[in-house]
C-alpha cells in the first residue's frame, strides 16, 4: 500500500489517504479479489444502456462533395427514408452548409440524425476557399460545445450535440485520380473530423477500373499525408471485420430509393437497358459495407473519436490561443481562473469603453440638436418680433387714419350742424322776409 498526501492547498492534517494511483486500464495496482457469490454488478452495462435509451442518441453526418454526386440520395438509401422533398437550390455564391435534423426510431432506439450537406461545393470557378466554410462550420460546432463546457452553470448531459461525428467525402467517379480540390479539402479536414472517403455513383466505373481507382486514391491519400478514419481494431469482437473493411476503402457506393423487382423480391436498384445495379448486392457495390461500418458496427466509436480526439484537439488549441496554459502545480488551481478573470476584465473594459464612446456620441448629437433647435427658436422669435412690429405699425397707421377720419367726420358734423343751423336761420329769415314781401305787396 502506498500513502500519499494530496496536493498543495488541500492538505488536511487529520487524515491519511491510501489511494491506488495506478490506472484501472493498466490492470495492475488495485488488487483483484475473487467473488464468493453473485453480487449483481454485471447489470451495469444494461443500466448504462437503459439510461442512454431513455435519453436518446444523436448522430451528425457531414456530406462533402460536388453537386450532383448523389449525396442526398445516398442518405435516403442509408437510412431507408425520404429526407428532403425537393432537391436543394444551387443558386448561392460560395459553399453553403445546409443542415437538417430528423428523428428516427428503430425498436426502442431513438436517434436524432443530423445530416449536413455542402451545397455548391466545387461549383465555383475559383475553388481556393471552398474548404473554408466547411472548416468554419465544423469549428463552430466545437465552439458551441466548448462554450457550454466552460459555462459556470452548465447542462452538459442534456446538451444537444451538433459536433460532426462522420464526414462522408464523395469522390467523383472519374476513374483516374483524386482532384486537387479533394486533396486540399481532405487535408484541411482530417484533423477535425472522421473522414470516410467514398466513390460516388460508382456504377459509372467498371470493376477493373474500380480496383485501379481505389489503389490510386489510397496511395494519393497516403503520399499527401491525409489521415482518414480507420475502423478500430483494438476490440477482438470487431477487430477482424474492421480490419478487412479498412482494406476496402474508399467504398464504391451506389444510392437509390427506387425499387425494382428482381426474381420475386423488391430491391432497391438502378435500372439500365443493359442491366440492373442492385444497391444491396455486395458484388455490385460497397453500399452494404458502408452501412455496416458507419451504422451497425462503428457508430459509437465515431462519436467517441469525435469527442476524445477531434474535440480535445480543438479545445486545446483554442484555450492556448486564448492565453490559458497548464502551469506548474502551485498556480494550477488559479491559472484558468486568473486568466479567465483577466480576459473577462479585458472584455468588460472594452465593453465599457464602447459604452463610453457611445455615450459621448450621444451627448454630442444631443448638443448639436440642441444647438439647432435653439437657432430655430431664435429665428422664430425674431420672426415673431418682426411680425409683431409690423402689426403694430399697421395698427398705428390704421389708428392714425381712423383718427384722421374721425376728425374729418367730426369737422363734417360740425359743418353740417353749422350748415343746418344756418339753413334753419336762413329759412326763418326767408319766411319772415317772404311774409314781409307779401305784406308789401298787399299795400
Amino acid at each position, binding site marked *: 500500500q502506498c500513502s500519499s498526501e494530496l496536493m498543495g492547498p488541500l492538505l488536511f492534517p487529520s487524515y491519511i489517504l491510501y489511494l491506488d494511483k495506478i490506472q484501472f486500464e493498466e490492470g495492475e495496482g488495485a*488488487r483483484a*479479489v475473487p467473488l464468493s*457469490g453473485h453480487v449483481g454488478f454485471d447489470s451495469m452495462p444494461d443500466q448504462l444502456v437503459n439510461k442512454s435509451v431513455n435519453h436518446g442518441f444523436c448522430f451528425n453526418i457531414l456530406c462533402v462533395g460536388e453537386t450532383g454526386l448523389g449525396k442526398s440520395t445516398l442518405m435516403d438509401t442509408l437510412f431507408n427514408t425520404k429526407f428532403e422533398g425537393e432537391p436543394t437550390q444551387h443558386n448561392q455564391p460560395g459553399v453553403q452548409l445546409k443542415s437538417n435534423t430528423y428523428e428516427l426510431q428503430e425498436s426502442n432506439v431513438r436517434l436524432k440524425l443530423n445530416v449536413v450537406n455542402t451545397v455548391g461545393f466545387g461549383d465555383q470557378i475559383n475553388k481556393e476557399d471552398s474548404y473554408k466554410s466547411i472548416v468554419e462550420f465544423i469549428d463552430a460546432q466545437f465552439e458551441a460545445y466548448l462554450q457550454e463546457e466552460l459555462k*459556470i452553470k452548465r447542462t452538459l448531459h442534456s446538451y444537444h450535440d451538433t459536433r460532426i461525428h462522420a464526414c462522408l467525402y464523395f469522390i467523383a467517379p472519374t476513374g483516374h485520380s483524386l482532384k486537387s480540390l479533394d486533396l486540399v479539402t481532405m487535408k484541411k479536414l482530417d484533423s477535425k473530423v472522421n473522414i470516410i472517403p467514398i466513390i460516388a455513383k460508382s456504377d459509372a466505373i467498371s470493376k477493373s477500373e474500380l480496383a485501379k481507382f481505389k489503389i490510386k486514391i489510397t496511395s494519393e491519400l497516403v503520399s499527401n499525408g491525409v489521415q482518414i478514419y480507420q475502423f478500430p481494431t483494438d476490440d477482438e469482437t470487431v477487430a477482424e471485420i474492421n480490419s478487412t473493411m479498412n482494406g476496402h476503402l474508399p467504398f464504391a457506393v451506389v444510392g437509390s430509393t427506387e425499387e425494382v423487382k428482381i426474381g420475386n423480391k423488391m430491391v432497391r436498384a438502378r435500372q439500365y437497358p443493359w442491366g440492373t445495379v442492385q444497391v444491396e448486392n455486395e458484388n455490385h457495390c460497397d453500399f452494404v459495407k458502408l452501412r455496416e461500418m458507419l451504422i*451497425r458496427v462503428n457508430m459509437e466509436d465515431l462519436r467517441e473519436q469525435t469527442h476524445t480526439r477531434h474535440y480535445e484537439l480543438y479545445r486545446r488549441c483554442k484555450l492556448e490561443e486564448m492565453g490559458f496554459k497548464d502551469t506548474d502545480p502551485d498556480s494550477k488551481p488559479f491559472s484558468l481562473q486568473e486568466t479567465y478573470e483577466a480576459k473577462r476584465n479585458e472584455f468588460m473594459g472594452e465593453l465599457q469603453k464602447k459604452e463610453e464612446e457611445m455615450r459621448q456620441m450621444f451627448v454630442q448629437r444631443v448638443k448639436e440638436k440642441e444647438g439647432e433647435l435653439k437657432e430655430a427658436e431664435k429665428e422664430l422669435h425674431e420672426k415673431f418680433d418682426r411680425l409683431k412690429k409690423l402689426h403694430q405699425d399697421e395698427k398705428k397707421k390704421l389708428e392714425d387714419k381712423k383718427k384722421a377720419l374721425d376728425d374729418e367726420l367730426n369737422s363734417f358734423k360740425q359743418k353740417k350742424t353749422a350748415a343746418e343751423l344756418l339753413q334753419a336761420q336762413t329759412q326763418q329769415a326767408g319766411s319772415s322776409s317772404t311774409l314781409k314781401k307779401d305784406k308789401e305787396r298787399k299795400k
Partner: protein
Amino acid sequence: MADVGKTPVARNEKASSEFGYVGIDAILEQMRRKAMKQGFEFNIMVVGQSGLGKSTLTNTLFKSKVSRRSVMTTEEERIPKTIEIKSISHVIEEKGVRMKLTVIDTPGFGDQINNENCWQPIMKFINAQYEQYLQEEINIDRKKRISDSRVHCCIYFIPPTGHCLRPIDIEFMRHLSKVVNIVPVISKADTLTLEERDFFKQKIREDLRANEIDIYPQKEFDEDAEDRMINEKIRAMIPFAVVGSDQEYQVNGKRLLGRKTRWGTVEVENTTHCEFAYLRDLLIRTHMQNIKDITSSIYYEMYRVRRLNENNTKPNGQPAIHANGVPEHEVLSHEM
C-alpha cells in the same frame, strides 16, 4: 423536421435481403461492448461508529473481502483518536464486467467524547475528490479518461436503538446530504423485532423530514413518472434494516450467509429476516448507474459552480466560505 417512424424488425435478421432495417439499434450493442471494455468505477464510503458492522456489511455486499479490516491484518485494532479516512481499491469481475471498487472507511467517526464537527473531515474529503476531478477537467491537456475518485454513495450506519435519530446522526446527514448521496441503514437489525423496526423506521423518516434532510433517492431528482413510481416504493422502505455476515451456514439443505445464534439463524439474504437484499439491489443491481449520474451531474456540478464563483471575493471583507463547505478557521492544536 420529418418524423419518420419505421417498423421494428427483429435484430437477428441481419442479412441484406432484409428490407427496411437500417441497423440503428445496433448502437446499443456497440455501447455495451465499449462499457465492457472500459469497465466501471464505484466509490462507496461507509460512516458510523465502531462496532456497527461496517466492514462486515461491505464484505457481504460485494461478496468478497473488500473492507479495510479484511485487508489490513498487521495493524493493531484500535480506535483512532481522530477521524481518519482510509480508502482501499479492489478490482472485481463478474461475467466479463470489470469494476474498480473503492471502499472508503472512516474509523474514529463518532467515537470521541466530543464529537463536535465530526462531519467536517469527511466533508473535506468528499470535496477534495470533487476538486481533484475539477482540476483534471480544466487542464488544457486532458487525459482521455479522467479517473473518477468522487464518492458516489455514502452509507450511514444508524445504531439499532429503536427510538429515534441521535443528534450526531442528524448533524452528519444534514451537512453531508448536500454534497453526496446518503443511504442510511439500520445496522445490526437482528436486535430489533419487526414491530420495533417499523416504529424505528417511521421515527427516522419523521426526523429526516423535520430536519429537511434529503436522502437517496431524492425526490427532486426523479426524472419521470416511471422513475417516481419506482423511487416512491423505495422511499417508503428506507432506511433499510440490514444484517451483514460473511459466514455461511447450512439451512434447509442450502448453504446461506447468515448469523447463527442459539435461538435460530438469521439469513442475510432472506427478505423476511432483514432488508439486506433490498439494499444490495438498490445499490448494485438497479440504481448504481443512477447513483453515479447524480454524483456527476448534480453534486459535482454544484461544487464546480461554487468553486468557479469563489474567486469573486466579497467586498465587505467577510471571510469567504470555501467551496469545501467549511468556514475558514485557525487550525487548532489538537487537529495537528
